[in-house]
């Protein structure tokens, strides 16, 4: 008890300004939480037949969670055919399972990488269908959370090999290769992602021979990959630079050629050093998938925005956006905590 009192004295009332801050902040926090609890729980309406009934039932100052009950499924899966919704659901489950499995460092290695590739391939097949008795669903109908996950995971997975090439290219002794790598990386990093997506979705059709069309999702995915390859390349380059020169020298002394040296000795270590930074890029990439809504793909923001325009359920934008906000927060917060824990354990291991 005395310990608790001492802690309170030092940490909350240590000085006059500190005590003032505590009182004001505590007041604001309590008021805020009280109001929020009132809106989200006490006055909230959990079942209603339509928007007007919902507002009437809550008296105008409660959340309408009934809206999510009706529209939640649409927000998650979007325009995917209703009866086939188990497929995007399975896709989400597979991705989440793979992400969780990847957290265990004991599983890291060739097997995990292969598992990921298999998982991604299986999910793509699952979404597309046309084989194994699954109905064919064109990419135009892919939407919501599965689309977000596919864009992020496929995008970053495919960007990775390109990033390694760019990073090696930037450190190359051949001036032309280095110049090309630097030009690419600096160009991409100097412009907003939305311009690259615009370039991919609007400009790309113009660059192709007459008659060929590329799927809209594929265009956006390509833009994503090209963009993130540049950022991942800088992280990998940081890892390569952090490697002690002795590693390079030892590998050379053993007579390994360039590619063998990179593949067997340098890259594995450099990548391991870079993992926390790579996870941070992944978090950024996951958040950036929202930009595809601007070029007309149907991600979570699109489905949510669409849901709130329904005539009988108008204007529940707070409910809709906090729903998808919570989903994004859940994924990103989990990954950032994981990245922090990883960084701490890697630092300990290297002492």
């Amino acid at each position, binding site marked *: 008890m005395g310990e608790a009192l001492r802690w309170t004295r030092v*940490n909350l009332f240590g000085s006059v300004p500190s005590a003032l801050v505590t009182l004001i902040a505590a007041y604001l926090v309590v008021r805020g939480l009280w109001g929020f609890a009132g809106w989200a729980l006490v006055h909230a309406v959990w079942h209603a037949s339509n928007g007007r009934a919902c507002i009437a039932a809550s008296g105008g100052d409660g959340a309408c969670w009934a809206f999510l009950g009706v529209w939640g499924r649409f927000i998650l899966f979007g325009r995917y055919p209703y009866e086939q919704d188990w497929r995007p659901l399975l896709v989400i489950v597979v991705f989440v399972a793979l992400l969780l499995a990847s957290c265990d460092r004991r599983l890291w290695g060739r097997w995990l990488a292969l598992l990921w590739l298999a998982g991604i391939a299986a999910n793509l097949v699952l979404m597309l269908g046309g084989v194994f008795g699954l109905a064919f669903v064109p990419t135009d109908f892919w939407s919501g959370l599965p689309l977000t996950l596919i864009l992020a995971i496929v995008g970053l997975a495919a960007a990775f090999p390109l990033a390694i090439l760019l990073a090696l290219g930037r450190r190359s002794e051949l001036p032309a*290769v280095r110049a090309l790598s630097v030009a690419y990386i600096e160009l991409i990093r*100097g412009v907003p992602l939305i311009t690259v997506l615009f370039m991919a979705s609007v400009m790309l059709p113009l660059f192709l021979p007459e008659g060929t069309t590329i799927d809209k999702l594929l265009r956006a995915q390509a833009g994503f990959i090209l963009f993130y390859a540049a950022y991942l390349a800088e992280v990998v380059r940081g890892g390569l630079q952090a490697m002690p020169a002795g590693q390079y020298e030892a590998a050379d002394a053993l007579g390994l050629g360039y590619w063998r040296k990179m593949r067997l000795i340098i890259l594995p270590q450099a990548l391991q050093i870079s993992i926390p930074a790579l996870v941070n890029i992944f978090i950024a990439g996951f958040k950036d998938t929202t930009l595809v*809504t*601007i070029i007309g793909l149907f991600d979570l923001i699109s489905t949510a925005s669409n849901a709130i325009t329904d005539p009988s359920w108008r204007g529940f934008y707070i409910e809709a*956006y906090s729903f998808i906000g919570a989903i994004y927060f859940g994924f990103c*917060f989990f990954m950032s905590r994981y990245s922090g824990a990883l960084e701490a354990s890697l630092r300990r291991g290297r002492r």
Partner: protein
Amino acid sequence: MFRSKAKIGALLLQALAVGAVLAVGAYLVHNALANMERAGIATGYSYLGREASFEIGESLIPYSPADSYGRALVVGLLNTLLVSGIGVVLATVLGTATGVARLARNWLLKKLALVYVEAVRNVPLLLQLILWWDVLRVSAPPPRQAWHPLPGVYVSVRGIALPVPVLSPPHWDVPHLTAFNFTGGITLSPEFAALLIGLAVYTAAFIAEIVRGGIEGVSRGQTEAALALGLSQGKTLRLVVLPQALRIIVPPMLSEYLALTKNSSLAIAVGYPELMSITNTTLNQTGQAIEAITLMMAIYLAISLVTSFAMNWYNRRIAFVGR
């Protein structure tokens, strides 16, 4: 002439790489020209001189639909710089305060700062911008019942009305309600306000972590030496820790400023007419997507390069003098 086979190999490889890039480039350009000719789309930048014939809601310089596309682009660029400039200032103030709060001794302050940083950093910026915009557009009351959080500040569905200082005679031009709207002071449109607040709040969370990292990055021994000499906590922070922390803070801070400027392109989703939005309208009307997009990318690239130079210049200037 060449001393080794390796050298010839290297030269060949480079020639191949450059040749491949040029070849692919030529192929793409050829296709583009063919496609554009077939669709009857002009090429070249002469469109910049043609009449724009679209309205722009907010502009720093006089503009009318009779003006050229070029002028419209300038309007957009100025709007980008305006929202980025003010956004950077707001984000720096808020971010620095939050970063210092993260290290405060007051537990409540520390945790509140942490909650803010984590909540904002883990939700996509676009979602936050749309939320701010919808709050200002949908939930805000009509001017008659405007929210009045601070003296002189009125928030309504028309936007945010703020008081403005006037130089001579020195007084505040405070907005007041007349008929259906506010006159006096300055009114920020809901689009501009949403973009500005959203960008500032989002970037501030990242700046907070940079500031925190900078202050923590100064070794403890420096603080101990200063305290041992009898300097107070405040003086220690100001004279010993912060000058050294700044060296760690400034480069990533400049990166965040650049990120904010690039993120302003999301204005297209909230209806604020900056560079990206206007480029989009232009390419929809003229069909000259390639010219419009490359011009826009070139402008952003120029802004990035200027920031890079600034960062390198700063780094060279403040490096610790060593042996």
